[in-house]
């Protein structure tokens, strides 16, 4: 009886948290701009790829550990960590820009596939979990230092045609959101 009794309180507690989070007025709608346009296609990340790879090269680190002081080694480790954090942030930015586009397309599509939508939610949750766990570990100093062989594939594997199409659709979605906001404002003004 007690468990069942408290289950209602637990349910309402969860609903209250979700309600408070979802009822907040969202920020400004996404607008593609010339500044972040480069990020959308991944070009900015690709520009720094050789430097990022160099920073993670195991051979360099081995050489330093044999030929330099501990102080220099510590500094190198610190810098490698900040590179890893920047790399993580870049992955996250890529992920979020893709998500924004996917949502904009879905919002304006006459028919959605439930499987694709739920798959995206699952991927988002998984990414958010992994991202936070790795970030905390990096910040705490127990840093995993990965090999970045796959990074070039990831960045250069972007199809220019798809990116261009998605960017255009993103702009249309942003325009639609803007139209919605102005329609609401007009409605209120008329009242």
């Amino acid at each position, binding site marked *: *009886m007690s468990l069942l*009794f408290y289950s*209602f*309180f637990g*349910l*309402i507690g969860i*609903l*209250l948290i*979700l*309600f408070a*989070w*979802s*009822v907040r007025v*969202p920020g400004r709608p*996404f607008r593609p701009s010339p500044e972040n346009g480069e990020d959308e296609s991944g070009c900015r990340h690709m520009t720094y790829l050789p430097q990022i790879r160099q920073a993670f090269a195991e051979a360099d680190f081995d050489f330093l550990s044999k030929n330099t002081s501990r102080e220099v080694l510590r500094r190198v480790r610190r810098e490698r960590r900040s590179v*890893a954090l920047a790399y993580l942030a870049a992955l996250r930015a890529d*992920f979020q820009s*893709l*998500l924004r586009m*996917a*949502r*904009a*397309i*879905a*919002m*304006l*599509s*006459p*028919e*959605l*596939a*439930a499987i*694709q939508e739920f798959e*995206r*939610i699952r*991927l988002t949750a*998984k*990414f958010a979990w*992994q*991202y936070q*766990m*790795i970030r905390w570990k990096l910040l705490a100093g*127990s840093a*995993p230092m*990965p*090999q970045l062989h*796959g990074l070039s594939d990831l960045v250069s*594997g972007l199809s220019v045609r*798809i990116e261009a199409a998605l960017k255009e*659709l993103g702009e249309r979605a942003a325009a*639609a959101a803007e139209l*919605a*906001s102005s*329609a*609401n404002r*007009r*409605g*209120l003004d*008329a*009242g």
Partner: protein
Amino acid sequence: MLVCTRMNEIPASVRILWGVTAFLGGGLLVLLLYRKSYRVFSTFFVYVLFDFLQCFVLYTSYRFWGFRSSVSSQIAWGTQGVVMTARAAAVAQICQRVLAEYRGVWALAKRLLILTAVVVLLYSWAIARGGWQFAVLNGHRGIELAIASVIVILLLFTRYYGIVVEPAVRVLTIGFFLYSSFYVLNDTILERWLLDYSRLWNLLGSSVMLASMLLWIWGLRERQPERAFEPEMLSDGIYHATAPEINARLRALNEHLGHFWNVERKRS
């Protein structure tokens, strides 16, 4: 004189709250008519009207049969069933108002909202206290829990897809959620302590109704546009062509992130 004695069974604080709530309900009806918002929120108007009429039906029954008589109890729960149905219809119309213009999202959301309501009702019924004397109370709690869940799912949808919710609709949903979630807790406590809690149950229930009424009056103080804007839809093929492609890209990013994770796991 007998009538006055019977009304005294109800605490003065509850009587005052009922009076104020009925007055505000009347005010909200006038506001909906004056601003012509009843055209936009027709089922909400019907709900407020039924709620307003219920006040008079209950007042009359308590005067004639007393607060604790079985006749009054039957009338109270019977009319509550009608009001509850109207409230569920009002929430359904709000969902439609917010999402219907986005045909794809609405088709998906509608299925999910119906499924949520059914599952929550079944869950609520399955774990409720047995016995027919609790059937009405369990039904009330189940429907209120379903309404609260549907509102949360609706708002999650709007947040996820970045759909703009009109300020008036936002306030209406807050009022409905406040009322429904509170009543789930109120009914759960009443089920356990029944008579000991019934006075407080009435007082708290009236207070939350009062708060919801005030919210709705504030939210609907201005005239509402007849229709939300109609977005220009993309052609059907775009979604089916791009959605799997984007998901594949997201999966690739996830795998890449997992690379960090695996390095860490191998080390430990």
